[in-house]
């Protein structure tokens, strides 16, 4: 007798998009609901399309290119690439998000380009972010992106899934960033290679949609293809007013088969820090408290959302950034920027001494907006601390939550933020 078992979220989304009974390990050709590229990757995708002899995309309303990584352009070379993207938009009719619109991973869900149950690819590794809203979204290279733009489909290997359940509850001063850093420390940078992650449990349920995105954003940091969550009422509510598309949420079956399962008691976790130069080089903050820092960064596709600004503003209200620290703040989108102004967060942070830069990637990837100097330590809310990541291979990057960054810029050293939440 053949036993038919249930399916994971990934298997359900791939089944629905390939018209097959997709199971982990199968290779399928699946329809994609959206394709995205940013300014570091779109130019190569545009060139790949030219080389393929293709001069239109499968559906211009399902393709966007975003200028976020080096934006506004710091040098001529980038200006030329931006021009190439604008011309591509004019020629094909795809949506172009020009400078100042924000980071691709904020814009795509914010504008309702994807909805729960969708399958999408983006030419950027952190495309896994929208797993938080039940989208199987994954990063691909420019040539894959070009093929998807041309054909509206792509080949995929349906991944195995690792189930991560967070039990208990978050302690005050501890945030979703700490949960994902803890996981990275536990399973390592290749702990989920080739797999999808599914995040479950009461801690995830209690998080806001924004805080969930921080977790899914970093799925790639443990090698995962996607970081999926179920769509609950909060998710559906979040999509209201964000476009025309109807969500088709996919939940795992009770008898879905997981390649691995981990349970983490969130009540036992304090603020976490990833130390240079690897995202899995994680310690509890107690072990690195007091490490001097010269620069703090609040922003990026990991932690540049309104809630992150609220947390930082709460800590910095009536306080000052230490004179020995540069504090760089980058809202993740124009909308976040406007909302943060409306709420007074930008004023609070600016008064405290922050330098607010254009919505976008900010100094995250070392192209502009705050390259650290030799020997300097940086504390950042970003997702990567590789050597040279911020443009100087002689600098040292520590990763933490927005609360940890805000607490640290006040004292010019890595500081436990829990004292502000007592």
């Amino acid at each position: 007798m053949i036993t038919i078992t249930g399916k994971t979220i990934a298997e359900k989304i791939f089944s629905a998009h390939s018209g097959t009974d997709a199971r982990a390990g199968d290779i399928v050709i699946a329809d994609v609901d959206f394709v995205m590229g940013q300014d570091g990757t779109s130019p190569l995708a545009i060139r790949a399309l030219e080389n393929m002899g293709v001069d239109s995309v499968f559906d211009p309303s399902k393709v966007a290119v975003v200028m976020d990584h080096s934006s506004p352009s710091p040098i001529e070379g980038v200006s030329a690439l931006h021009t190439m993207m604008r011309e591509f938009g004019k020629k094909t009719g795809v949506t172009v998000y020009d400078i100042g619109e924000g980071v691709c991973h904020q814009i795509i869900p914010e504008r309702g380009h994807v909805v729960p149950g969708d399958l999408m690819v983006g030419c950027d590794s952190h495309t896994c972010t929208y797993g938080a809203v039940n989208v199987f979204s994954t990063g691909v290279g420019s040539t894959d992106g070009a093929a998807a733009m041309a054909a509206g489909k792509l080949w995929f290997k349906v991944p195995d899934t690792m189930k991560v359940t967070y039990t208990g509850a978050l302690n005050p001063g501890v945030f979703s960033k700490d949960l994902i850093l803890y996981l990275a420390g536990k399973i390592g940078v290749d702990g989920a290679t080739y797999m999808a992650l599914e995040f479950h449990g009461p801690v995830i349920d209690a998080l806001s949609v924004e805080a969930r995105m921080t977790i899914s954003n970093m799925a790639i940091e443990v090698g995962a293809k996607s970081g999926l969550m179920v769509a609950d009422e909060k998710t559906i509510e979040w999509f209201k007013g964000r476009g025309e598309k109807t969500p088709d949420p996919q939940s795992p079956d009770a008898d879905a088969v997981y390649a691995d399962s981990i349970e983490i008691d969130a009540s036992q976790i304090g603020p976490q820090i990833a130390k240079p130069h690897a995202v899995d080089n994680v310690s509890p903050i107690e072990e690195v408290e007091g490490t001097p820092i010269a620069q703090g960064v609040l922003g990026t596709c990991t932690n540049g959302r309104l809630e992150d600004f609220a947390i930082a503003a709460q800590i910095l209200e009536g306080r000052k950034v230490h004179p020995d620290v540069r504090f760089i703040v980058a809202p993740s989108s124009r909308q976040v920027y406007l909302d943060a102004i409306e709420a007074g967060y930008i004023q609070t942070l600016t008064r405290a001494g922050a330098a607010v830069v254009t919505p976008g990637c900010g100094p995250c990837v070392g192209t502009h907006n705050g390259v650290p100097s030799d020997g300097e330590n940086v504390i950042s809310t970003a997702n990567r601390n590789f050597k040279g990541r911020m443009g100087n291979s002689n600098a040292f990057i520590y990763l933490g939550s927005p609360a940890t960054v805000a607490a640290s810029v006040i004292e010019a050293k890595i500081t436990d933020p829990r004292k502000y939440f007592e």
Partner: protein
Amino acid sequence: MEFQAKAFKYGDDINTDYIISGKHKFKSADMEAMAVHAMEDLDSEYYNKVKPNGGFLVAGKNFGMGSSREQAPLVLIHSNTKAIIAKSFARIFFRNAINTGLPVIECDTDLIDDGDELFVDLESGVVRDLTKDIEIPFPPLPPVMAQLLADGGLVEHFKKHGGFSI
């Protein structure tokens, strides 16, 4: 496909920022010019060592972790790297390598040392270390990937078949 060249060996978890730093990747779309920066944060001489006679980049586990930048396999191709031989690969890099036509070989690399002369036969699935006189077998690629590589990458595949033909 068969190749013979020297091995240039590095460690585990070589990330895409080491292969080509973000600070260079955004400067231009000219891969020939960017190739001189390949691997430079790990080994500033990589390009000069590999370019004249070609070479194999040999590594440990999780090669190519990090970003989706296709510049990573492209600068390696343009630096005259014939194939990457590693214990395991990060998913996006692996796909990008196949799509751009850079052979990736998954096998045990512990026995290979920096500077060894290697002969690689992709079809029969064997790395021959001529310096040590040993053979290391590797599993063949899944058929979809083998076909893309045989066609010379995804662009060539599209040109040849007018779309996906797998």
